[in-house]
């Protein structure tokens, strides 16, 4: 009997090993075909919010592995990416080969079936990066509670959401006019709790600002003392010596940033190769190093390690319509 168990165990282990080998081999074989096709295409046109100097570094690292791909990158905001791909696709014009945008922003393109469906698993993509067939997660947007260290001591600094409701921060909290962090919190808290929190926060008279680089800049200047900001936006200020520190709150709002492949792309295989690489541990590492925008779904990524133990609050891709609906209900609370 014991020898029978040993034989069975050996059989199972070798079968699993063989299967893993076969899957990896199949992925490798599929990937090889993509690489060969990409070599013939030789070029990728990308739309995304990372800047030209960031693109130079990211795409330069990609070229270390795949030197045969040349890039043309156009920097534009997430909604501009959607608008542009939508209009181009409706008119039958090829534009981007890869459009990198927030997953919620890609929904209009999904509805009109303008994006390619890809079996990312067969290409060897990380399972955690795959949430849908129309895009692969290449980064995540995460929010932090930041403070000006010249105005706020470490001891007094807010460490979590409820700390911002303290009356001592009345008129000193900066928030983005876009309700995204609160929309993402709904996944963990439920809409009723987020609505209640937001209303109480608004009673503390936060200073509502446009996002992007404006919030961190005004925080560093001392116009506000604390802020809810996207961690990535702190990078230029902090790297320049700006007096800012931050914590990742718990739950941590997370939004997937996806690389999508428009159907009309002229270089579909080169685009697929680039998207796949961006979602890999190597791509995620470079992307985070250059842009400060990491991927919490890549376990080895620095941000995943820094935020380990936090509850990630994010919407599954098939529920993003509900997220948009919640966002619309939050907007009049932030800007009545």
């Amino acid at each position: 009997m014991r020898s029978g168990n040993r034989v069975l165990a050996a059989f199972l282990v070798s079968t699993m090993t063989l299967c893993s080998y076969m899957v990896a081999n199949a992925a490798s074989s599929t990937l090889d075909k993509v690489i060969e096709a990409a070599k013939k295409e030789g070029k990728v046109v990308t739309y995304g919010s990372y800047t030209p100097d960031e693109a130079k570094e990211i795409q330069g690292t990609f070229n270390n592995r795949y030197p045969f791909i040349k890039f043309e990158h156009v920097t534009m905001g997430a909604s501009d990416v959607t608008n542009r791909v939508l209009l181009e696709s409706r008119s039958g014009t090829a534009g981007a080969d890869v459009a990198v945008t927030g997953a919620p922003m890609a929904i209009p393109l999904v509805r009109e079936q303008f994006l390619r469906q890809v079996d990312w698993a067969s290409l060897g993509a990380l399972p955690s990066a795959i949430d849908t067939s129309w895009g692969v997660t290449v980064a995540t947007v995460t929010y932090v509670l930041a403070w000006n260290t010249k105005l706020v001591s470490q001891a007094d600094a807010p460490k979590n959401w409820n700390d911002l409701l303290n009356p001592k921060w009345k008129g000193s909290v900066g928030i983005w006019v876009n309700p995204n962090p609160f929309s993402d919190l709904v996944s963990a808290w439920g809409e009723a709790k987020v609505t209640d929190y937001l209303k109480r926060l608004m009673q503390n008279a936060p200073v509502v600002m446009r996002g992007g680089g404006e919030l961190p800049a005004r925080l560093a200047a001392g116009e506000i003392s604390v802020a809810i900001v996207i961690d990535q936006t702190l990078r230029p200020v902090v790297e320049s010596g700006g007096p800012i520190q931050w914590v990742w709150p718990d739950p941590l709002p997370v939004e997937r940033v996806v690389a999508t492949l428009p159907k009309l792309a002229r270089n579909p295989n080169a685009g697929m190769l680039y998207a796949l690489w961006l979602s890999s541990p190597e791509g995620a590492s470079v992307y985070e190093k250059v842009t400060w925008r990491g991927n919490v779904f890549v376990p080895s990524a620095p941000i995943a390690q820094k935020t380990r133990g936090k509850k990630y609050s994010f919407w599954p891709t098939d529920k993003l319509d509900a997220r948009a609906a919640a966002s619309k209900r939050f907007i009049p609370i932030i800007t009545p």
Partner: protein
Amino acid sequence: MFLRLKSLLPGFAFVVLTGLVAYLVVVPIVLLIWGGFKPDGLVTSSGFTLSNYIDLYSMKRTYALMLNTVIFAAGSTLVSTFFATLLAWFIERTEIPCKRWVRTAVIAPMAVPPMLIAMSWVLLGSPKIGFFNLLLKNIFGLKTAPLNIYSFPGMIFIQGITLVPGAFLLLSFAFRNMDPVFEDASAASGRGVFTTLHRIVLPILRPALLAVSILTFMVSMAVFDIPGIIGLPAKIKVLSLQIYLAVMDPEGIADFGTVSALSSVFFVAILLLSYLYYRQTRTASKFATITGREFKPKMMDLGRWRYGALAFVGLYVLFATGFPLAILFWTSLMPYYASFSLERLHVASLNNYRTILDYPRVLMALENTFIVALVTAAAVVFLATLVSWVIVRSKFRARKLLDVLSVLPMSLPHIMLGLGLIYVYLTVKIGIYGTIWIIVIAYVTSYITYGTRMLNSTMYQIHGELEEVAQVSGASTIRVLRTIIVPLMAPSMFGLWIWVLIGSIRELSAALVLQSYKSLVLSTVLWSIWEHGELPKAATLGVIAVVFLFSVMAVGQMLSRRFELFTGKR
């Protein structure tokens, strides 16, 4: 046969000109209006709906928004027209010293993108970190900040003075073209300086003043930077801010239906204001100040008001130009956005200037920008000259249509103009989509209004007798244009050229929507830097733009001395 064809030429030229302007203007306007009846606001979508308009105009807060917008725009118009009129009069008609420098200093802020000007004013007037407040608190031992830009008056004041350069340009040429005979007559009958200004000069300049008022009113309604950077934290909402919020709709695509419905307010406003302008200026000969008689503008002696005038001009230049540009320069020397402080002097450096040229493809952006700006400025001057001449001088019945067409672009948010052009040139595939030429078309469309208002005002000042005499002597239409109209209008055309050149360099919304890999321009580079949070680098580009403007103005002053463009000598 040949004579018959020759007689048909003016009519043919009018049709071609009107057709060209109509093509530039009507297509994006129709797309904007039609988009409002589509569920997602895009004309390429199926379906028809009234819900965009019904939802918007059935809400009480829409009317509160409109009221805020009217107050904001009217206040900004009053501020800018007040300062621009007095400055133009002091510089063009009185004996204040250092006119060339003052003129350049008044216009200089025009080179800086409005979002940088707004952020500069935050560092000057913010209750918490503003330089003025910190200084006043220190000097007078105040506990609270005496100034607050986060208020309606604060917003109105800052918006108003950002519009002064454009208004000043338009009015200064109008003042320059005035025959001093009217002022002499007033002085001879014992009227004082300011009575002459109020009772004689301003009524004669009514077309120019109306044009300035309408333009600044519409621009104040449409621009977003001051409402976004100052109004949003102050919880003051106006239409342009609401359009911004509709554009960043969380559903992933802008709520173009709401944008179109909101923009219809601009459309109605510009039509009403144009009608008012037409009613006030329809008897053109009343405003003619350039006749067959040669004149040289006479500089008025201000007498005991001289020092008051100097103080007014000096204070204006200091507060409207000096301080904002100084703070902009300060920001460009800093590693991160920070208020002025002697303690921070040790971190000031020229690093941003050293690294800005390393920014990827900035040289391509510079090259594209100069081509776009030069071509746009030339095209607008050319088109606006022809359009103004037809509107003011010709007898074509349909010239009012041309007039209306030329003001309609003011009702178009630039993002909608950009999207409209994408749609057109993705459909009509003539190879300009993704190139700088689609950006040129967008800019020409958006600047045609300012161009025609500016040149209309000048055209009203030129008496018709000058052309009549030439025509009676047998001169052709083209010869009259070339030898009489253009030389008389040259100073205004030059001023327009500068305004459009500078405006094209800093124009952002349309360029952002239309940009491609090969059509990168300076404003999109600046936006990219700005959105990335590198405000000091963005300020560096702003300072470079100001230096460039100073250079252009210096060359302009040299040319003017050579060709008497600015002396107004006839």
